[in-house]
């Protein structure tokens, strides 16, 4: 709204008549000029023009509203005004010869032109504002994500610590129990069939407990990607015989034929414990779910690949059942009274994949199933093996039960064995004995086994040092190897694997 002085009436009078007539036509006919004369109190004295043509009330009261509050002695011009439900107008409050007039006429074209520009400009600003808000929200989300990642890492570390502690807490006593059982069986099982039967029951129970604990911990390790593989020498024929010995009684109990075969006598370089773990799952499932007929196991190694087939004449599976077979805590028939946590096949597949291999299943309802495990592996270098019988071995462990157990097992195997409880005793024993092999626990109370290994190496020890630990973490293994150990083996100790590791030169 702008103020203006007295209008140029003389110029209008001087205009040629046709021009005046033309302007009158423009203002009155085309732009619908209307007006009111108002007194100093804002009341209407006179009016002219058709107010309804401008969408206003017939008395033009909108123009009176416009004048409310305005200084009665000053002229005003408002270029674009829109009254309620009226088209846009130009408005003038004109003071002429002491009289006050409110004049209005159409202003659609100016309104539209300015409106389009203003709408675009405002919408652009709004978009910019939204963009900035989105960027700000994204920045905040990123920050939250970083916080969550930190929390997740903390939780992950806590979980790793828990698994490591649990491995140690469970692993140590189970090693002792299994080892002692092995010795007791050897000592006493000849005495009577009853005693032998008792041992078999106890051993099965402990093994089952051990497998359950291992399954849960393995699942957690696999989920975390912290499961370590411990390759060693595995004789294909021995693996086949072990499985036959383990499952033949069970198959016979169910009156099933259990056939085992291998293609040729070969020694592979592979984590035998994990291979056996997978095959135990596959064979035990085949026997469990086959009511009659036959279960057969066939092993072969060709062109860098171990391939094991477990085939049964059981009820077979539908495609849906086969697809959900490897999911954790799943059973084909929840009503069956089959023991276990339902983790076996899930872990077997994850283990196989962790080892770079796969498990394939072929099955037809009513016609049995065939599981094929394939794992990449090379043949072992058997020339580098030495005889374990003549070895001088130093066992370093703070747990007297484990120390004693290893002592008894190794002595029984023909080795010369000394024991040490800590780093200092180990150094003294090494000086006296000069052992071929040192079996070194990685957690000697408050002492770190890796530090002890480093000290022994500094003294000049060239013995083969095999690190033993209830923790199966990569971190423990890395510490052991960087401390000067030659090999790492997790507890509970697989005695065959231990022998294989000690025999390497």
């Amino acid at each position: 709204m702008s103020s203006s002085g007295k209008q140029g009436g003389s110029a209008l009078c001087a205009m040629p008549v046709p021009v005046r007539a033309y302007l009158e036509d423009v203002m009155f006919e085309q732009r619908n000029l209307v007006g009111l004369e108002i007194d100093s109190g804002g009341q209407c004295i006179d009016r002219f023009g058709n107010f309804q043509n401008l969408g206003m009330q017939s008395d033009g009261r909108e123009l009176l509203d416009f004048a409310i509050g305005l200084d009665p002695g000053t002229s005003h011009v408002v270029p674009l005004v829109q009254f309620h439900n009226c088209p846009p107008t130009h408005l003038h409050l004109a003071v002429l010869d002491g009289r006050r007039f409110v004049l209005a006429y159409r202003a659609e074209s100016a309104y539209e032109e300015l409106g389009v520009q203003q709408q675009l400009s405002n919408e652009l600003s709004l978009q910019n504002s939204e963009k900035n808000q989105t960027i700000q929200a994204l920045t905040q989300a990123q920050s939250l994500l970083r916080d969550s990642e930190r929390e997740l890492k903390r939780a992950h570390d806590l979980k790793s610590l828990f698994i490591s502690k649990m491995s140690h807490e469970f692993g140590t006593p189970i090693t002792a129990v299994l080892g002692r059982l092995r010795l007791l069986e050897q000592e006493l099982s000849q005495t009577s069939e009853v005693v032998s039967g008792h041992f078999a029951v106890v051993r099965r129970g402990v093994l089952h407990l051990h497998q359950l604990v291992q399954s849960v911990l393995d699942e957690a390790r696999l989920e975390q990607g912290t499961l370590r593989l411990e390759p060693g020498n595995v004789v294909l024929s021995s693996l086949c015989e072990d499985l036959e010995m383990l499952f033949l009684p069970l198959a016979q109990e169910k009156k099933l034929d259990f056939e085992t075969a291998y293609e040729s006598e070969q020694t592979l370089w592979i984590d035998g414990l994990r291979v056996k773990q997978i095959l135990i799952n596959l064979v035990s499932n085949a026997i469990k779910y086959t009511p009659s007929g036959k279960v057969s196991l066939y092993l072969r190694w060709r062109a860098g690949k171990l391939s094991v087939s477990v085939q049964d004449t059981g009820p077979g599976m539908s495609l849906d059942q086969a697809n959900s077979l490897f999911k954790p805590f799943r059973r084909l028939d929840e009503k069956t009274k089959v023991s276990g946590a339902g983790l076996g096949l899930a872990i077997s597949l994850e283990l196989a994949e962790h080892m770079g291999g796969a498990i394939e299943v072929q099955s037809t309802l009513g016609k049995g199933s065939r599981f094929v495990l394939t794992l990449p592996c090379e043949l072992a270098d058997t020339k580098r093996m030495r005889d374990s019988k003549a070895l001088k071995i130093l066992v370093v462990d703070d747990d007297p039960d484990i120390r004693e157990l290893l002592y008894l097992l190794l002595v029984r195997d023909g080795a010369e064995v000394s024991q040490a409880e800590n780093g200092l005793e180990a150094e003294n024993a090494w000086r006296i004995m000069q052992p071929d092999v040192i079996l070194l626990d990685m957690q000697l109370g408050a002492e770190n086994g890796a530090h002890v290994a480093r000290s022994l190496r500094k003294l000049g020890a060239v013995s083969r040092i095999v690190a033993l630990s209830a923790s199966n973490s990569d971190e423990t293994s890395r510490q052991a190897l960087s401390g000067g150990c030659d090999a790492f083996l997790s507890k509970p100790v697989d005695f065959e694997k231990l022998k294989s590791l000690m025999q390497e030169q």
Partner: protein
Amino acid sequence: MTEARKICLLGSFAVGKTSLVRRFVDNSFGERYLTTVGVKIDTKEIALSELRRLKLVIWDLAGASTLSTPARAYVQGSHGFLVVCDGTRKATLESALGLLDSARAIIGMKPAILLVNKQDLNESWEIDQDSLEEARTKCSAVYSSSAKTGANVERAFSAIGALL
């Protein structure tokens, strides 16, 4: 005769000034944003008491973050202000209070009420109670409003009417 008073709505663009007037005058609401060009003038009578009625002449000024030269003339003769900001855009609060300061610098200390609008979008709210401290010292009242739902719209217009 009913008294008449002029009030001006001040605020940045797209804060919802025109929608507030539409809700107050016609009790209607449209989702589409349409910029105000120049000024829109509406009127509505309100009852301040059983005996006193007041005609509000509402000048809805085109949105801007600062008071433009035409707008400096529009506020002439205003008896009070409704100052409007958008609760989902914090910057519009600062603009609204700046516009109020500029208008008062021209026509003197007139009553004002602040509306923090778009209450219905409170999941994207950016204005907290602490940031309204300055507004409380400059305005007689602060309302959280929604032209969409009608929340506090009638109340705010009645409140400014009572102050005029």
